[in-house]
């Protein structure tokens, strides 16, 4: 029990990390995109939990709302729009899947060589910057709002314009001729 208490967050991490990886593998391997989408949803939710573990509460909520809600619904709609029969690939993987796996392993090797020699100093508790607004503890959402609407106002506006453009683009693309 002590072990559980002492390493609670670690255990949670491993659990959800494992689930996320399994979900991801599901996305890549499942033939039916409908199942793939569900599997992707699992990954999204698990990643949201992992965000929580790193004290990024606001991002976690956004992850659930946007990914789990918005994007997922979008995918499901499209999948339903497109004829089911067509979705079943005649041949699931392309011609060079082994090459891809090889390249991925290569990349993995690179990552490992990159990570191994580095040590990261992690703070034991949540950093104060995550919740402080001008030195007063308020909460993660307030801190993000404070930062987003002041320091990053221009990028924020640009992103909103970008979204507008994407929306118009999607509408134009999806329109019947």
């Amino acid at each position: 029990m002590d072990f559980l208490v002492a390493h609670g967050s670690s255990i949670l991490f491993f659990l959800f990390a494992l689930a996320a990886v399994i979900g991801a593998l599901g996305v890549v391997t499942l033939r039916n995109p409908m199942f793939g989408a569900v599997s992707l949803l699992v990954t999204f939710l698990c990643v949201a939990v992992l965000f929580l573990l790193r004290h990024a509460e606001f991002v976690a909520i956004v992850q659930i709302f946007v990914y789990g809600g918005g994007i997922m619904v979008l995918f499901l709609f499209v999948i339903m729009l497109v004829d089911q029969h067509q979705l079943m690939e005649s041949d699931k993987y392309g011609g060079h899947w082994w090459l891809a796996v090889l390249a991925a392993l290569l990349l993995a090797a690179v990552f490992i060589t990159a990570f191994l020699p580095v040590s990261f100093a992690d703070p034991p508790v949540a950093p104060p910057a995550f919740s402080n607004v001008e030195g007063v503890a308020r909460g993660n959402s307030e801190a993000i709002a404070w930062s987003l609407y002041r320091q990053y106002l221009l990028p924020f506006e640009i992103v909103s314009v970008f979204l507008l453009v994407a929306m118009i683009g999607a509408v134009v693309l999806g329109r019947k001729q």
Partner: protein
Amino acid sequence: MRWLWLIPVLPFLGAFLNGVVLRDRLGKKGVWMVACGSVLAALLVSVLAISGYLGSEQYSAHEPFEQSVYEWIPAGSMGLDDGSFADVSVEMGFLLDPLSCVMLFVVTFVGFWIHWFSVGYMDHEPGFQRYFTYLNLFMGMMLMLVLGNNYLVTFVGWEGVGLCSYLLIGFYFDEEFPPYAGRKAFIVNRVGDLAFLAGMFALVAHFGTLNYEKLFGTIEAEPALVQGDYVLGMTLATFVTLALFIGATGKSAQIPLHVWLPDAMAGPTPVSALIHAATMVTAGVYIVVRSNVLYQLAHGTSELVAIIGALTAIFAATIGLAQTDIKKVLAYSTVSQLGYMFLACGVGAYTAAIFHLMTHAFFKGLMFLGSGSVIHAMSGEQDMRKMGGLKEHLPWTYRTFVAGTLAIAGAPLLAGFFSKDQILAATWADHKLLWVVGLVTAGLTACYMFRLLFMTFHGPFRGSEEQHHHLHESPPSMTIPLIVLAVGAVFSGYVGIPKLGSIDINVFDHFVGQVVAHVGHGEHHASLGIELFLMALSVVVAFAGWWLARKYYGGDRGLAEGERWAAKFPTVHRWLFNKYYVDEAYDATAVRGTWACARGLFRFDSKFIDGVLVNGSRHLTVGISLLSGFFDKYFVDGLVNLVGVVSQSGSRFFRRLQTGLVSQYALVLLIGMAMLVWFYVVVGLRR
């Protein structure tokens, strides 16, 4: 006198009304009433202004009346030749002194009568309103020219009359020749104007002003100012006078810029009378007399002026002997008489030059109008060989023409007699050789003028039957100006009766003499005995001229005698008839040269600058890329082919890279990314 500025403005107003405001709205009558009315008004104001000036205190004090209207070109400050800085400014201003009085009167008086004559002459021509617009414009410009109180205002008129001359010579614009003649006149004049400008620049750069009174006052007070070394080994006076004289040769059709005037006869005949005989062409003489202070201080130029004048006089007179076109004869006669005036200027007889200018305006204007009347009667025919015996049909034209001919030939007691003799006397005193030239010219003048008279009015009629049927005397609107000018041609000489011993009634000399400075090279006077002798001699010479003309062209013998005479000297006749081939020579050198130059430069522009330099840099760029293309093709491709030959599977692999499959592109992306990350992270971390 306060209304001096109104004099040039009135004709401008007429031109504006006729040309822009009314146009044809009031009909022909309205047009000529406006045109003639404005000139008449200018004439009246001129007379009032002149009389006002003659009665003013300024006149008694031998001072001119100057009127500044407004500051025209405040060009800004400028370093003068002496190192100081001055604000150069040119004003729009007018000047009334004895010289401009004479010019003013001649221009407005003769101008008015020629306007009147035109009403009848142009009656049946299209473009009536356009004609009078131009003519009024001309009057305004000419008045600016003679009234300006500085070189620049004079230059305005100078260029302006050039423009009007261009327009009026090219009046019959739907034919080929007149526009060409007009353009030729304008461009030849412009060559002269270039020199005129240079003279003005020198004056401005040295004195900072162009005002006549200020300039001449300064120079008269201190002649050394203009006698120092200036440029090209000339003194300032020489430079300026030379420049102005070149300008004058352009406007007054002197050698070598005389070629435009005979061609200018393509315009309507009253225009020839007004512009190319009485007024505009005398502008050169006017400017030389106006600048007499400078000319007196520039010996060399004065001599050149005299020589050019004498040369032109005899040169044009000889050409006049052989021409058959009635207006061409008169045109060469004008050139010749202008030569006389320059001869007078050159020998320092400035008043004589102006005097001759005035009398010439009367008798040459008269003769041009007379020829206009003849051409009118002959329905446009200008060739004298087709005329003859017109005196019965055109009695008034004949009578007035005789008066004019006698006047120009120097018949005793007519206008030309006095003015020409004054010039010859002054030349005798200054330069004997030039005097001989002048005297011979006088004989030639009498000869070709009587030849003209005989060929036109005497002998049998040689035109067609239709022309004969059509012959008629001109209407009174045309004969009245003839008579008025004939009176002038006969009597205008009496204002300048030469000084004979103690009897000095030469009003003109005293009047205009006021503007002649006495600083250097002045007029020499011959003694009384010699003067009388010279007079007699010139009468004899004129008589000889008449006798020659009478012998070959007079009576009822027609042209046979004259042609036989000409056939005796075929080379001479050909050269004279073709005007010494000067036009051809200019055409072959200057005109063609300029054109060749222009075309050559254009070719240079498109071939070299644009072709070689600009497009060359393009070609260079393209060339380099082509070179690298060749390199690619033969070297790199060669290698590739080698590889292909050695291993076909290899080349297939290369081709397969471009499958169009997104997944494969993504794969390549992935591999590339892996390598990049490896490079940055692993290699970078090691360092």
